């Protein structure tokens, strides 16, 4: 099987359409399961009381915000180097979802910070770099919208996305490099988690749910982008005729 076949919009379009609903269902079922464990099985935290239950969305959202940025920058980079038009469309499709998760991470962080730290916001390294991430996403979308020639817009945005990628390790390591109000990592690759197993369990399920949601939404959005950009092509017209006859 030739996987590169799917690097063409005309073959990727139906594949994305077939896959998206499955990821959507998986996201819905996993978040119900994860929240059930998070609210009905996980006990009260001995330090934070019930306020800690914000973790089940805050941490998955924050991880997704960083990870989606790297995926977006990677696709944009591939589009820049190999001039493949689907790669640039993928990058463009990822930006709004990444921005949404960044916003959610910031707002839930503020709502968590107020009762536990006594402040909604502090200009510490973790929060400031996450805010910059939001501006990078918004800048990416605004820059793309402001350049009329789509291929030029793709290229300019790819450079922005790649340069901005340096911010992601800064966010990730900020709690280690600087003394921040934000706590250090509760979960890391190298040490045992500093959380009760049942809380961790719920958080990981929510993490996978956020993954599935992102895949479903991005696949659907990339189909919209393909439709908008390729509307003059013969394959889309044929598809439309087939859909009309079916």
């Amino acid at each position, binding site marked *: 099987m030739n996987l590169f076949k799917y690097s063409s919009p005309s073959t990727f379009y139906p594949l994305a359409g077939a896959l998206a609903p499955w990821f959507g269902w998986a996201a819905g079922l996993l978040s119900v399961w994860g929240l059930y464990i998070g*609210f*009905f*099985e*996980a*006990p*009260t935290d001995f330090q934070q*009381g*019930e*306020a800690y*239950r*914000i973790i089940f*969305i*805050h941490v998955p*959202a924050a991880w997704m915000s960083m990870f989606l940025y790297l995926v977006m920058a990677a696709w944009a980079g591939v589009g820049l180097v190999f001039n493949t038009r689907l790669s640039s469309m993928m990058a463009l499709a990822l930006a*709004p*979802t990444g921005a*949404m998760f960044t*916003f*959610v991470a910031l*707002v*839930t962080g503020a*709502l*968590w910070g*107020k*009762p536990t730290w006594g402040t909604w916001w502090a200009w510490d390294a973790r929060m400031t770099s996450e805010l910059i991430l939001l501006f990078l996403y918004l800048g990416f979308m605004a820059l793309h919208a402001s350049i009329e020639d789509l291929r030029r817009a793709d290229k300019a945005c790819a450079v922005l996305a790649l340069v901005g990628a340096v911010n992601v390790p800064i966010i990730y390591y900020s709690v280690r490099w600087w003394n921040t109000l934000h706590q250090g990592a509760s979960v890391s690759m190298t040490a045992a988690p500093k959380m009760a197993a049942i809380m961790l369990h719920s958080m990981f399920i929510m993490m996978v749910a956020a993954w599935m*949601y992102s895949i479903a*939404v991005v696949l*659907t*959005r990339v189909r*919209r982008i393909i*439709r*908008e950009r390729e*509307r*003059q092509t013969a394959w*889309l*017209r044929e598809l*439309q*005729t087939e859909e009309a006859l079916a």
Partner: protein
Amino acid sequence: MNWGSLDNFLHMGGYGFYVWGSYLVTAVCIAIELLMLWLRSKSAASRIPENNA
């Protein structure tokens, strides 16, 4: 975790505003994203011109 009553569940040990506020904001953001995606499929830009050949 047995909450005992719905009131206790909504009260969240005094953190109801923060916990439910977080979940509400997230739900609204997701709803807006899905709505915008749906509206985009209805937009003129994604409509394919009729094949007049």
